[in-house]
């Protein structure tokens, strides 16, 4: 038992020594800094903690996360549903694919000013923008995933006369799931960007609003604190997502045969890079 613990600590040390060193370096170098743009890290940290627990930052963060979660859920439901349908209808897919490719190529950030300014500062326009931006990567990856279902499985399902509702939920959906999850991962990054951007525009709350508001007031420490918090949030969300993915795709990650397929899946991920 003791060895397990020692091993664990050694592994941990190996992966965190560099980030810890860099953080310490920043702490030491910035200590006593008088530049207004680069306040000491210790001060930023103190501001972050204070704003988070005493000030408004915590409330703003929760508000933003709520918008992100609702938008993402809408995008997942619609993207997967349409993806399952279009992925099965090959002729239809070929007919609509130029249109879909054009629509997903439109930078989602571009519609933010229009939607936000027209619809006002509430949560609904932000959720709409997030859902719209997240929809495309999920849709396109679901279509690809469904189309990638192995012919042997399709034959098996036909030979055993699997009715279509069962086929969709027990064959198509799980077969496409690795690719769907890859799409959601991209969508998460897109959603995060849209969440922040939409709050830059017309908003009176939210983490994005908090950052711009602080920067226009030249509250440098608050600006840094908010920005760092967004980074931490992005990291925590994507780590969380990775855990969910590992759970859901247990069968997929265990199967040694998928190792090479996984690599090629990664190469096929649509509209990669959420920025």
């Amino acid at each position, binding site marked *: 038992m003791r060895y397990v613990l020692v091993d664990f600590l050694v592994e941990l040390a190996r992966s965190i020594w560099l980030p810890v060193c860099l953080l310490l370096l920043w702490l030491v170098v910035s200590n006593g800094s008088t530049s207004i743009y680069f306040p000491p890290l210790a001060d930023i940290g103190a501001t972050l903690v204070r704003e988070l627990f005493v000030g408004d930052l915590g409330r703003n963060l929760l508000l933003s996360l709520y918008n992100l979660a609702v938008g993402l859920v809408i995008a997942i439901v619609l993207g997967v549903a349409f993806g399952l349908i279009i992925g099965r209808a090959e002729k239809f897919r070929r007919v609509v694919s130029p249109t879909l490719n054009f629509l997903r190529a439109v930078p989602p950030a571009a519609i933010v000013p229009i939607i936000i300014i027209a619809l006002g500062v509430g949560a609904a326009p932000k959720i709409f923008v997030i859902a719209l931006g997240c929809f495309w990567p999920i849709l396109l990856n679901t279509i690809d995933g469904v189309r990638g279902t192995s012919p042997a499985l399709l034959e*098996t399902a036909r030979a*055993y*006369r699997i009715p279509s509702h*069962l086929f969709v939920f027990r064959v198509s959906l*799980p077969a496409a799931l690795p690719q769907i999850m890859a799409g959601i991962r991209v969508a998460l990054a897109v959603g995060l960007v849209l969440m922040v951007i939409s709050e830059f525009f017309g908003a009176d709350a939210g983490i994005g609003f908090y950052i711009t508001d602080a920067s226009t007031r030249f509250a440098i420490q608050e600006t840094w604190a908010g920005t760092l918090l967004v980074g931490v949030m992005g990291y925590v969300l994507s780590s969380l997502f990775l855990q969910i993915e590992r759970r859901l795709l247990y*069968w997929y990650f*265990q*199967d040694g045969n998928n190792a090479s397929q996984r690599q090629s899946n990664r190469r096929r991920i649509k509209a990669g890079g959420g920025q």
Partner: protein
Amino acid sequence: MNIMTTVKSPAQPKIKSLAVEGLSKSYGQIHVLSNLNLRVEPGEVISIVGPSGAGKTTLLRCLSGLLPPSSGGVKVGDEPVREPVAEIGLVFQDYRGSMMPWMRAEENVAFPLQGKGVSKSVRLARARECLEAVGLPGVGDRYPWQMSGGMQQRVAIARAIAYDAQILLMDEPFGSLDAQTRFDLEDLVLSIRRRLAVSIVVVTHDIDEAVYLADRVVVLSGHPATVIDTVDIDLGMDRDQIKTKADPRFAAYRGRILEQIRRPKPE
């Protein structure tokens, strides 16, 4: 391999025959099968052999209803087969690909029953029973990738049995397995035909396997492929990997078929 229990099917319907009548198949200009006639009587085991590329798999896919024939047809009992029918259970060569990797063994076996509307407890119980019958007791909760190739192919056979298929169609079922596993599975097929009321059609390129398993061997050859010979195998019901294969009659059948397959080779 005598540990098997008997698998009682809920309702044992009268087995139907499988008839191929004047079946031809071509892909565009390429004629693969030409005017095949064949009849599988209830309870019979038939092997279809032929050199690679002779259209064996195409024939099996036509038999199962996965592929529409160009002319002629297939009948189960009196009903023509146009789409896959409930009487036929298919065992694919690609055992890996035909298992849903997200389902455990018993879910894979039970899945076609779910399609028939069988309730969950009943279909899982039946899946376990059938897994036991193919010599896999207690592995129902394993995923396909936790099983060897031979085990996966046993699961595929269990799935066909659980489906209450009256006719098992097997496409090169043991082609990619090692010799020992292959022998075990051949004996499993023989034991299934002894215990269950099913007809079995095995497509294979292995002549030993064809003779060992079958009551009748159908030899396909030529381009497009035709039935060039039908050999009745009179080796009795009880066969044994060593004794049967050492039997002089076995060698005679084997030689006859081998000669048939080699003869039409163009120089």
